[in-house]
């Protein structure tokens, strides 16, 4: 049975009052909001991609349950529907804001930073209120609690996050830079706040916090590589036009540049493609202005590698080896790839079947994404589906094919190894036992660690001040 929608209108309230009198489900707290505010809240929820973690694919929106694999174990996303028993139905606006921007639950327990509250801390009060209005009024309550997150010691002590927050949570909302355009400021707000781009694209330190000094310089999402999206011409997106960046975020594809796969495909699918054109342009303008972070290994832009190539002469008239692991790269390409990417890797005339030349996926030195796409395929709403080859190809075949692709269509300096394929095929992020061990040892040496953390904190504060004075 569908519950009544929560609206501020008198008849609805009357109906709710009556329904509670006759013993139907009690309504949650009210939050009067006009339709515009709710719509704005919905847009922000999309821009913030809440659904990426809080909606289990195929299940009720925002009801939680998705395990988010981290190096210290799986963190289970919570139910953030307005259910009073299983969700956030009893949260006041202030409590909602504290969870969103400070990582503190209604019961005072601390959230794990898998929830990107360090980014949401940038949200304006107005936007937090709009999000609250949306969740309370338009999201259907689901009275089912997902299983609790269970992390190893000491991470199971949520209070340990207090020290982490002390170090890494800059709880100040976004302040516009008066010297920049409104567009730039909108882009900066979206990138650093709701869209939390840095959650994937900024590398993390040993304690899993984003490294402020390397903002957007590229990070890892499980085995996927989120590339450098700073303005650097070779390592980042400096060579992309604004239109290309907008097209990429809207369509998941920019001709002769790149296509979104893996978690980025999800970001496009759930979030970015629904943003307005001005917002996407604002994001692009801001990204193009970010401090360039350069990796000397990147001798040219990732999309500048490769040329049309085939090796048909080596395989026509030659019988296929019986042992599939002995197939050559050209034979594997011919059997599995050439149908869509065409004989010379050029893709289809309309770009819908992507070219492998001038393709960021093959031009980066980190080859994890190539391997992951071969194994898992590429799925992106509304109509993109590259099939997965995990069942069709052995580890050796994926490595052979990866080498063939990189050598002919990508950056020949990059490498794919059989072990790499094996690891990525295994899928789940390996628990970082070192981190767990270090942290467990640390809890034994609590006094020492407190002093160490304090020292780090002091040095960071200094560093920040220097950063601020230097900019």
């Amino acid at each position, binding site marked *: 049975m569908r519950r009544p929608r929560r609206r501020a209108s008198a008849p609805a309230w009357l109906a709710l009052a009556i329904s509670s009198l006759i013993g139907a489900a009690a309504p949650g707290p009210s939050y009067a909001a006009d339709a515009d505010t709710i719509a704005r809240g919905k847009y922000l929820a999309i821009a913030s991609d809440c659904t990426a973690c809080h909606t289990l694919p195929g299940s009720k929106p925002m009801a939680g349950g998705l395990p988010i694999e981290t190096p210290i174990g799986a963190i289970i996303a919570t139910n953030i529907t307005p259910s009073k028993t299983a969700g956030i139905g009893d949260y006041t606006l202030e409590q909602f804001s504290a969870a969103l921007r400070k990582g503190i639950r209604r019961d005072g327990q601390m959230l794990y930073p898998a929830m990107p509250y360090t980014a949401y801390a940038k949200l304006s009060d107005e936007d937090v209120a709009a999000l609250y209005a949306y969740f309370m009024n338009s999201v259907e309550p689901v009275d089912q609690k997902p299983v609790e997150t269970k992390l190893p010691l000491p991470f199971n002590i949520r209070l340990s996050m207090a020290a982490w927050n002390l170090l890494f949570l800059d709880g100040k909302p976004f302040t516009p830079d008066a010297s920049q355009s409104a567009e730039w400021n909108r882009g900066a707000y979206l990138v650093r706040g709701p869209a939390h781009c840095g959650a994937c694209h900024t590398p993390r330190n040993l304690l899993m916090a984003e490294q402020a000094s390397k903002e957007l310089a590229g990070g890892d999402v499980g085995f996927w590589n989120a590339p450098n999206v700073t303005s650097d011409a070779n390592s980042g997106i400096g060579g992309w036009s604004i239109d290309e960046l907008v097209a990429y975020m809207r369509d998941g594809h920019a001709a002769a540049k790149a296509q979104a796969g893996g978690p980025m495909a999800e970001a496009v699918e759930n979030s970015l493609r629904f943003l307005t054109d001005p917002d996407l342009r604002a994001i692009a303008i801001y990204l193009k202005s970010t401090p360039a972070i350069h990796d000397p290994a990147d001798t040219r832009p990732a999309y500048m590698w490769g040329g049309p190539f085939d090796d048909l002469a080596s395989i026509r008239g030659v019988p*296929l080896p019986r042992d599939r692991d002995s197939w050559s790269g050209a034979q594997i390409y011919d*059997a599995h790839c050439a149908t869509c990417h065409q004989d010379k890797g050029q893709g289809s005339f309309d770009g819908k079947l992507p070219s492998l030349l001038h393709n960021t996926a093959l031009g980066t030195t980190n080859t994890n994404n190539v391997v992951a796409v071969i194994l898992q395929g590429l799925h992106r709403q509304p109509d*993109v589906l590259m099939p997965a080859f995990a069942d069709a190809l052995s580890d050796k075949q994926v490595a052979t094919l990866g080498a063939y692709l990189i050598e002919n269509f990508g950056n020949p300096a990059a490498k794919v190894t059989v072990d790499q394929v094996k690891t990525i095929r295994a899928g789940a992020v390996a628990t970082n036992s070192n981190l767990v061990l270090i942290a467990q040892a640390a809890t034994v040496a609590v006094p020492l660690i407190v002093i160490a953390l304090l020292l780090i904190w002091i040095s960071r504060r200094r560093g920040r001040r220097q950063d601020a004075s230097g900019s």
Partner: protein
Amino acid sequence: MADILSADYIVVGSGIIGSLVARKLALAGASVIILEAGPRVTRGELVARFRNSPRRSDWMSPYPPADWAPHPIYQPADNGYLIQAGPYPYPAEYIRQVGGTTWHWAAQAWRNLPNDFRIKSLYGVGVDWPIGYEDLEPFYQEAEEIMGVSGAPNTGSPRAKPFPMEPVAEPYAMRRLRERLASDFPVVANTTARNSRPYDGRPACVGNNSCQPICPVDAQYHGGLSADAAEAAGVQLIANANVYKLEHDESGKVTAALYYDPDKSSHRITGKTFVVAANGIESPRLLLLSTSDKFPKGLANNFDMVGRHLMDHPSTSLTFDADEDVWLGRGPQSPSSINTLRDGPFRSEHAPYRLDFTNISRVDGSTKSLIAAGVFGPELEKRLRHSAAREMNVKNVLEVLPNPDHRITLSSEKDAMGIPKPETHYSIEDYTRRGAERSQQDFRRIAELMGGTNLRFSKDGDFANNQHICGTLSMGSDPKISVCDEWGRTHDHENLYLAGTGVLPTSATCNSTENALAVALRAVTHMLAQQGATSAPPPRDADERVPS
């Protein structure tokens, strides 16, 4: 020899029908084993072999037969597996490997017309089916949702629910046919199991135009996917298991399947219910091979009906050059057809037919024939370009009536395993020939509307075969003229079911796969009911079995 395997259901054949029957049984909680004579193959190998074949128009070239489980091959030379007793040749093609013959089809997934089930009552020809269109309707839908079928909305087969997807984009040549024939013929999208959008984890068609011999991306549904789905549902699939005999007990119930592995070691598998789904030639062959003192003519053959009523869809055709460039070869091989001649009072006089347009690239065929004619140099290029751009072809797909003299028997020749080869007895009857004659006027009119020149009719009396083998295990209510009942259960053995195109008692005018699949999916409900609680573990001892 030591294998002692057993299951609730033993399915012989891992093609689209056997695998999807097995899957549905397994999903209902039953234990199921599939025995497949041929080897496992992967799409990658098939695509690689196709691309590497010097005989690109020989669609069987990527499918070399296994020594231990051969299938008929005709190019470059006849391998002599399917013996032709005549008078008219029946050069059937099929594939013995995991997934079966639909690795290699054009994915035509037509439903019969309601009147196709009652041609004896309505037109005084053939036989009536023991069931009607309405009995099959939900199972057509089930089949279509599994395979991802699309089609034109009105081709005479009413639907309770819409197709699961829209048709693939209309190729340009088909658009021109539709536009230019509109005054006389409605040209519509074929009903096919081909993705126009991502569906069930498979991508949309990318227009490689190699549906036969192999869709290189699985946009086209095939039995290999059915076999994968069966295994995912818990079915145990044993490849390279060439079943050569079914055994029975005193009561006539089937008790075991005997198979040879590639080394000709014999294995025995027991089960409660047996489903033979090994295609329209191999299934009757297995029944005929399963002789015993009690059943000297083989199983299910008390009235000598097994293997009889062999039918297919013979075709004649017209090739012509249009007066404009249409460039066949973009998109699927068989995208469009005319369906208005599939039913009518004329069926009492001559065969009904579909008119099917090919969209197969002309480049390979034209190149070969021009070179064979000694054309070379700039002239070759000019004429090849002309043929590739303008050549078109239309064929009829004719109904054949059931005739007990058209049949599959066991040959005196034996295959490499020492098992008698199948032998065909076939002819083209006047009913079908009259239909072909009638279609000549349609051919001419179509060519005329397309500004056609250089008209080349297929040789008079020559009928191409469409590999829609059916009728050899006909279902019916009268055991004297049929092999099994409406559920595919043999009249003679209560736990022996037949599934596949052989069960279809008439051929109608459309490809047999979808009809056979719907009949088989419907039959599964009966198979499950017959065993009662299917989730119970299978008895390991014959004595424990409770007669049903």
